[in-house]
């Protein structure tokens, strides 16, 4: 039985075809991208505006038009959305970057905005303290490109460092991408653009040192004997202190049990010492030579309702309390300020 299907007649057929072509051009437009060089001073002082230059290469295998995305990983305390500006120069024109609104969802980002998508994809780029954020900007206008284009350009960043007034050692990281492809690749080979010809690129810098400031040194880069989580907390948080016995050999290396010996200082100037080797202060072994204890500082130090804890100092001891480890394996205590900023 032969049935002849009716011939479809679509109103405005040419308009629909044109629209489809435009959509296809948008969906399948892409350029592979890589950061070829990052230029940054080795050190800076709190409050400096640091110039950072990223050199880029792009290789396009389609016609299209996209905005460029730039992400910079930095300490949250630097308040990057207020302290980072950037511009671009290149063979396709010059212009400025603007902050990408947090309400803008990233393509291929499973409903995440750009900072969350970067966080989920690149983490904190090997830094050791999870108090960092991706600050994401986009070019003010899209740039157009043609199939076969080889584009070169530079991004010039101006980053005011150390808004939290803390001397800092950190690995800054950079991601470039476009507003269409997110962090995807086409699975092919385009020499020099990653194993699968990626439409994005991440560059992790060396440890960058910021000196000066009145706060405590925050070292994101080097393993520490002790860490505090969350990095910023008040006395009414639950605070986890971790002792990493594998960082360097200390008197406590090989101990079965280690204990917290801490001194709390209150807003009315009282000093409260809790230095006992009991269940209250024992640090439980976790993995990789680490020991940890989670305390509610208000209860641990027993402050009353009218008092708050402003800071604490602490040592790690053995079961007898005679072997004491302090900051950098010295006799000086570790220090911690209860603050949110």
């Amino acid at each position: 039985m032969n049935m002849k299907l009716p011939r479809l007649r679509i109103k405005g057929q040419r308009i629909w075809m044109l629209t489809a072509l435009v959509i296809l051009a948008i969906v399948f437009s892409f350029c592979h991208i890589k950061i070829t060089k990052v230029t940054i001073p080795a050190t800076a002082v709190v409050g400096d505006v640091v110039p950072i230059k990223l050199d880029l290469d792009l290789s396009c295998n389609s016609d299209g038009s996209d905005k460029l995305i730039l992400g910079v990983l930095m300490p949250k305390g630097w308040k990057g959305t207020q302290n980072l500006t950037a511009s671009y120069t290149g063979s396709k024109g010059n212009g400025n970057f603007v902050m990408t609104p947090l309400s803008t969802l990233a393509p291929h980002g499973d409903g995440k905005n750009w900072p969350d998508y970067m966080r989920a994809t690149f983490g904190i780029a090997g830094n050791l303290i999870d108090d960092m954020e991706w600050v994401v900007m986009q070019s003010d206008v899209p740039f157009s490109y043609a199939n076969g284009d080889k584009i070169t350009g530079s991004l010039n960043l101006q980053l005011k460092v150390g808004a939290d007034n803390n001397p800092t050692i950190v690995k800054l990281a950079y991601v470039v991408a476009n507003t269409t492809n997110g962090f995807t690749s086409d699975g092919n080979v385009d020499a020099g653009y990653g194993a699968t010809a990626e439409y994005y690129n991440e560059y992790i810098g060396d440890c960058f040192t910021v000196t000066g400031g009145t706060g405590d040194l925050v070292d994101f880069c080097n393993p520490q004997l002790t860490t505090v989580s969350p990095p910023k907390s008040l006395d009414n948080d639950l605070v986890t202190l971790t002792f990493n016995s594998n960082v360097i050999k200390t008197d406590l290396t090989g101990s079965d049990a280690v204990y917290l010996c801490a001194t709390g200082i209150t807003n009315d100037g009282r000093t409260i010492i809790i230095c006992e080797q009991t269940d209250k202060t024992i640090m439980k072994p976790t993995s990789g030579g680490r020991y940890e204890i989670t305390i509610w500082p208000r209860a641990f130090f027993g402050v009353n309702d009218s008092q708050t804890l402003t800071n604490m100092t602490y040592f790690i001891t053995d079961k007898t309390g005679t072997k004491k480890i302090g900051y950098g394996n010295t006799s000086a205590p570790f220090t911690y300020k209860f603050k949110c900023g």
Partner: protein
Amino acid sequence: MNRYILHVAICIFIFLSSCKVEEIAPVAEAPKNIAGSWRVIKATRNGTDITNAFDFTQFRLQFDSAGNYTLQHKLPFLVNANGKVELDDPAYPFKITFRPEGGTAVSIPFNYPTVTGTRQLSLSFSPGCALNAYIYTLQRDN
């Protein structure tokens, strides 16, 4: 003929008596009863499970039927003092409000899922720095 009339009469009778409008009263949603003593079965801080890192076992949050709550063996929590509690709607609550004695009222979303047949109460709050988010999942004591 009589037999025919009888059949027709029976059919009419069946037809008339077979259908009737049945009025189904909508089943009222039961008010959410949170009375009881609740304990923490899971705690997270900034998304990390800390249930076993700290002793949550002694803490109790008790609601009575008169709308009071009491805290036993306190922890960092939404409020620090005992007081009144209320839901914004008894049947379809979206918010739970704690009014501590001598303190400021605090409202948070009311999250009251049933997990494996048991009601749980999930409370989200930041007792210290605003960026540090805690979620306690509570379950009634047996």
